[in-house]
């Protein structure tokens, strides 16, 4: 019996005319239901590409991705993506942005009143219900990211894919959203794959950390288990031995064994 999400010998080569770039090679990874997995690696190694492959937004050129015994071949709401730059539609209000997803996914199965409840429930979850009638241009970056998360959660996806969701935020807002993310994960038990640049974020949030080697033809370098019990408290962890050891392992991987080399 294969894993909940099985990534099997996946490779991705981009072709433009005669030029080809092999970005990913032979990536294999099994992810269990309810697991929180982080992907970390240097800029340009192909993390977003891998996420897009899982989302189905781009097609694999080798291997295959299997979610609950079905091969991933096209995008769908069962793999909701929170994009790096929130990607809310600026002409819709916060409420309407979430509604776009809810109307599409639950248009047939939920009544109008139920859908409204569901939208508000998800906005409440990220504490954005108060801004339901604001447009994206009228709210802060952190708030936009939260609405993006609400929109993704509202699809009730099998897997939540987060592409550096907190990358563009200041440290305080980021810490706040990380705590919220942990709470949501504890409450709903989603399966989450998150790309990050931030070592602390990866250790704090994840059950496992996937470390990628540098491109071209990047692959999985190492997978680190984070055996910290939940719920996790960032202040207590700051001096926790397991936490520090995990942190050191990731840092060593990134800055000793696979140092960032500027591609020629």
């Amino acid at each position: 019996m294969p894993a909940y999400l099985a990534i099997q010998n996946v490779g991705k080569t981009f072709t433009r005319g005669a030029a080809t770039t092999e970005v990913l090679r032979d990536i294999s990874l099994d992810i269990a239901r309810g697991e929180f997995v982080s992907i970390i690696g240097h800029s340009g190694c192909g993390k977003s590409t891998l996420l897009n492959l899982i989302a189905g937004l781009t097609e694999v050129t080798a291997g295959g991705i299997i979610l609950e015994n079905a091969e991933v071949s096209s995008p769908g709401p069962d793999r909701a993506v929170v994009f790096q730059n929130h990607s809310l539609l600026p002409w819709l209000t916060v409420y309407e942005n979430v509604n776009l997803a809810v109307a599409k996914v639950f248009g047939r199965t939920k009544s109008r009143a139920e859908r409204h409840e569901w939208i508000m429930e998800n906005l409440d979850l990220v504490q954005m219900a108060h801004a339901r009638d604001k447009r994206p241009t009228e709210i802060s970056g952190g708030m936009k990211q939260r609405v993006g998360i609400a929109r993704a959660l509202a699809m009730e996806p099998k897997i939540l894919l987060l592409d550096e969701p907190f990358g563009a935020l200041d440290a305080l807002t980021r810490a706040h959203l990380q705590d919220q993310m942990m709470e949501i994960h504890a409450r709903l038990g989603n399966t989450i794959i998150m790309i990050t640049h931030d070592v602390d974020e990866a250790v704090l949030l994840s059950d496992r950390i996937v470390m990628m080697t540098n491109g071209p033809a990047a692959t999985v370098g190492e997978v680190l288990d984070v055996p910290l019990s939940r719920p996790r408290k960032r202040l207590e962890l700051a001096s926790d031995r397991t936490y520090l050891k995990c942190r050191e392992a990731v840092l060593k991987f990134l800055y000793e064994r696979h140092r960032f080399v500027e591609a020629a």
Partner: protein
Amino acid sequence: MTLPATKDDTVTPLPFKAAPATIVPLGALRPRPIDIGAVLRAVAQATVPPLVVLAIILTVWQVLCSSPGSSLPPPSQVWTDSYELIVDPFFVYGSQDIGLGLRVLTSLQRVAIGFGLAAVMGVAIGAVIGQSVWMMRGLDPIFQILRTVPPLAWLPISLAAFMDSGPSAIFVIFITSIWPVIINTAVGVRNIPQDYRNVAAVLRLDQREFFFKIMVPAAAPYIFSGLRIGVGLSWLAIVAAEMLTGGVGIGFFIWDAWNSSRLSDIIVALVYIGLVGFVLDRLVGLVGAIVTRGTSAA
């Protein structure tokens, strides 16, 4: 294709002012004391300079055209010759003898049909073309050439094709105004950020949903700048179009007045056409500003 949203320098979305969308609860609307002095000053600033310039122009014109041998009538003569036309836009003395306001309405109806068709088809065609790199490459040069053909030049072809002056006139308006709509829509669609496409893909929006929920709103600033150019062109085409329809349009009125050497009437009609064209342009601009609230700030 993950082209960055490169701005084509020939087609930029109009810089619509995003109206502040603050929501004020009704109770909070307290009548504020209006500063009458400030309002008057603002009105004066907007109206005095054009009025002064207008007065200068009329004076110069009067002086230049007052000599007995001059070929054009001076303003004072226009006033006396065409007094009826100027003071009453809506008189009806006979089926052919009606005020210019009524004539303008007839012409506007024609423009509404021609331009309405151009708007709907232009957006549809532009959307299809903008979605495909190859169509864009193939068709764009052809459109760039066709859009420079003047309205009058379409007339004979149009007549030959429709054999009837009514549809031909509408076709001339249509064909003159459709190009900027197509071209701007296509550019707008091509510039839709990949992010929005990804959102649509994840949600599995179908073609129709994508068109109405993503494409049209995302490209709206471009579409409206195309529509604004288009409505201007369609009004430009009215004289050419009505040369052959006859009847009571403002375009035909000019043609008719020329044939019976009523120069003063022509001058009055020109002013009407100019004013209506100005209003049309502002109207489309206003609708665009309202519709694209939010989008343009993307």
